[in-house]
């Protein structure tokens, strides 16, 4: 069954080809069937592959399928191959599973769009690229996938490119990602220079068994450069600014790319390279700190945003911060576990918000919502499940994963990480329920014309919501503390070949049961406190937020304007670079390069202008030149200079 792994990649690619090449001439239904069918088949094969992996004994769960020899140049060799192990098999299930649901949802959501086939072509291409990223057995293949998902992200953010803001957001995402990818590419080159291979298996075994000193300078630089790539792709400080703007794309895109899959590529990459990261304590500290700070920072911005999708975008950044915090303290399993549950509930929340936007004919401002729960009951119920899950109320999925991260950050990290994480968890619960209350509860502030068209979404949109709600409810049971299925499943990847590392399951022995239980109670209490505060402020006393905003005007302004980070970046980087570019364009390009080319042409032209005077058109003059020439030849001949 494992041999089928190539098909997982093939189906989305076929879907892309069909919809991209002849999609224009196909009927909309056909386009939808092709797109969903290809991902559905891919999901089916993923399940088969996953089962095939489960049949193997835990120690041998690593399968590599060599496709072809790709590049051979001197000492550089790269084979294109696919690697199936617990980590990648889990990822392909998430990508194809959640992707399949979002494809189905898109049929309903994008129904009236004239770029229907283009949309599905991009979406299939994205799925292919993401699967390539996840399944690649070497750094280069991963990098190809990494860049390709970036490209699809660009194409889909700018899907409605007629809108200036959308095309700007797409450009911003692309450029910001480029900064990170630069680091990632350098990291890969350094890996090759250090290990003389870019194959995952070879590099990691060389790193763990070789005479490689922990904390050495090279490995620190490699991991830091790769983390730079991760901050770009996974929207961490300092490269997170593109993600909130990416909400200009269609909502299912935000759900698939900017919540469930692509933005988690950074987490996946660090988890995949856990051997390297474990060798560099300094990088681990950086990863954990950046993750923790981002979690808190983004959550605080999310508190005051009024655009329903932007709240979710900041929430995504914040949750990704949690995953990096987990990876940074060495709890890779917890990070990947949270990645999975987050994929479920954040996809659910985004699709739910899409359903709200769809119901309100495109309105995204929460100040113009309210009281929607009776009008769109299915959306409300599923959204509620998602909100509870992300807030971390047991027994929903988010509780287990977030609780594990907080616990691990306390046990393996330090108290500071835990405090930051806990505060961020409190804020998460608060802003999610603020969103919920503003959207679904209270008095309706919906504008008149939107009210007339208010309707529940069609079945092909509510079905994915329901399935994702179920996953958000049950997904956490994979990681119940003490009997964690996911821990033991992922243990070969994170514990098998890293001698410096203690696997999640082994570490579980160290922290005592009472601490674990205490943490559960504490994190539940934190979540409940956040929900209660949101209830007080946005449901019971709706006038309170306005008063608070008036009272703490400076802080409110600061948060509302996202700490002015975009403005600071503009002033520090964008505008100077623009100015330099203009100077380069005018001075260097137009002045020096064009100037020198044109100057040479002008020089030749001027010289010819002088020479041209020789050519008078009078035969007599030409005859004269001939005579002069003859005289010279005769003179030379006579003086004996020229031998005939």
């Amino acid at each position, binding site marked *: 069954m494992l041999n089928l792994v190539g098909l997982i990649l093939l189906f989305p690619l076929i879907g892309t080809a069909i919809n991209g090449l002849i999609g224009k001439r196909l009927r909309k239904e056909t386009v939808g069937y092709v797109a969903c069918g290809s991902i559905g088949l891919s999901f089916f094969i993923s399940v088969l592959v996953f089962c095939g992996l489960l049949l193997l004994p835990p120690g041998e769960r690593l399968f590599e399928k060599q496709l072809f020899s790709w590049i051979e140049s001197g000492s550089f060799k790269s084979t294109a191959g696919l690697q199936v192990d617990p980590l990648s098999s889990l990822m392909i299930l998430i990508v194809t599973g959640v992707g399949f649901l979002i494809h189905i949802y898109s049929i309903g959501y994008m129904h009236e769009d004239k770029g229907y086939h283009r949309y599905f072509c991009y979406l299939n291409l994205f799925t292919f690229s993401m699967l390539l990223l996840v399944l690649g057995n070497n750094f280069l293949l991963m990098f190809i996938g990494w860049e390709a998902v970036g490209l699809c992200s660009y194409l889909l953010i700018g899907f409605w490119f007629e809108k200036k803001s959308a095309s700007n957001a797409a450009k911003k995402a692309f450029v910001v990602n480029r900064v990170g990818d630069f680091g990632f590419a350098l990291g890969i080159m350094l890996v090759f220079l250090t290990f003389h291979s870019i194959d995952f298996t070879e590099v990691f075994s060389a790193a763990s068994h070789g005479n490689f000193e922990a904390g050495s300078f090279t490995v620190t630089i490699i991991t830091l450069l790769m983390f730079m790539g991760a901050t770009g792709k996974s929207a961490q400080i300092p490269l997170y600014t593109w993600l909130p703007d990416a909400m200009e794309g269609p909502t299912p895109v935000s759900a698939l790319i900017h919540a469930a899959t692509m933005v988690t590529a950074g987490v996946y990459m660090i988890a995949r390279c856990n051997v390297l990261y474990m060798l560099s304590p300094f990088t681990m500290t950086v990863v954990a700190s950046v993750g923790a700070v981002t979690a808190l920072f983004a959550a605080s911005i999310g508190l005051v945003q009024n655009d329903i999708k932007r709240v979710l975008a900041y929430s995504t950044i914040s949750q990704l911060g949690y995953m990096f915090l987990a990876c940074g303290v060495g709890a890779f399993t917890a990070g990947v576990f949270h990645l999975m549950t987050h994929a479920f509930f954040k996809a659910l929340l985004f699709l739910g918000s899409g359903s709200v936007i769809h119901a309100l004919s495109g309105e995204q401002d929460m100040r113009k919502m309210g009281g929607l729960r009776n009008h769109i009951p299915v959306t409300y119920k599923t959204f509620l499940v998602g909100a509870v899950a992300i807030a971390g109320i047991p027994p929903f999925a988010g509780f287990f994963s977030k609780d594990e991260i907080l616990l691990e950050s306390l046990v393996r990290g330090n108290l500071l990480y835990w405090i930051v994480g806990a505060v961020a968890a409190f804020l998460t619960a608060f802003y999610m329920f603020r969103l919920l209350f503003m959207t679904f509860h209270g008095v309706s502030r919906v504008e008149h014309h939107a009210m007339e068209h208010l309707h529940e979404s069609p079945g092909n949109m509510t079905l994915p919501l329901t399935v994702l709600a179920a996953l958000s409810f049950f997904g956490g049971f994979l990681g119940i503390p003490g009997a964690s299925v996911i821990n033991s499943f992922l243990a070969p990847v994170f514990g098998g070949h890293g001698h410096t590392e203690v696997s999640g399951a082994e570490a579980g022995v160290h922290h005592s049961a009472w601490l674990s239980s205490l943490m559960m109670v504490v994190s539940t209490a934190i979540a409940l406190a956040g929900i209660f505060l949101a209830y007080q402020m946005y449901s019971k006393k709706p006038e309170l937020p306005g008063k608070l905003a008036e009272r703490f005007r400076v802080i409110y302004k600061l948060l509302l304007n996202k700490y002015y980070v975009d403005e600071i970046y503009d002033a520090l980087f964008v505008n100077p670079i623009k100015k330099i570019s203009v100077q380069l364009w005018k001075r260097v390009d137009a002045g020096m390069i064009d100037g020198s080319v044109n100057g040479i042409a002008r020089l030749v032209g001027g010289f010819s202008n002088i020479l041209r005077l020789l*050519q*008078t*058109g*009078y*035969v*007599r003059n030409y*005859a*004269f030149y001939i*005579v002069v020439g003859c005289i010279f030849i005769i003179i030379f001949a006579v003086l004996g200079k020229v031998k005939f």
Partner: protein
Amino acid sequence: MITVTHYLVLSAILFTLGVVGVLVRRNAIIIFMCIELMLNAVNLSFVAFAHYLNSMQGQLFVFFTMTVAAAEAAVGLAIIVAVFRNKETVNIDDINIMKW
């Protein structure tokens, strides 16, 4: 005693006269006559050398030259006539369309 040097000097003088004539005169017919003068100057030196070297080759060459000169005169005069019909002049300063 008239030596070969005398012939050659005369030939050179005639040739130079021809060259100067070609270069300074404006009338195409005069230029044409000057070209003939140059050809005949060369003929003179051919004959002189032929006599001096006791070889018939030089004299043979003269016949060739005269043949070519005759053909050239026919073609050249025809061109001049054609030019005159078009431009009503044989002044070569007015015939300057050889440059772009």
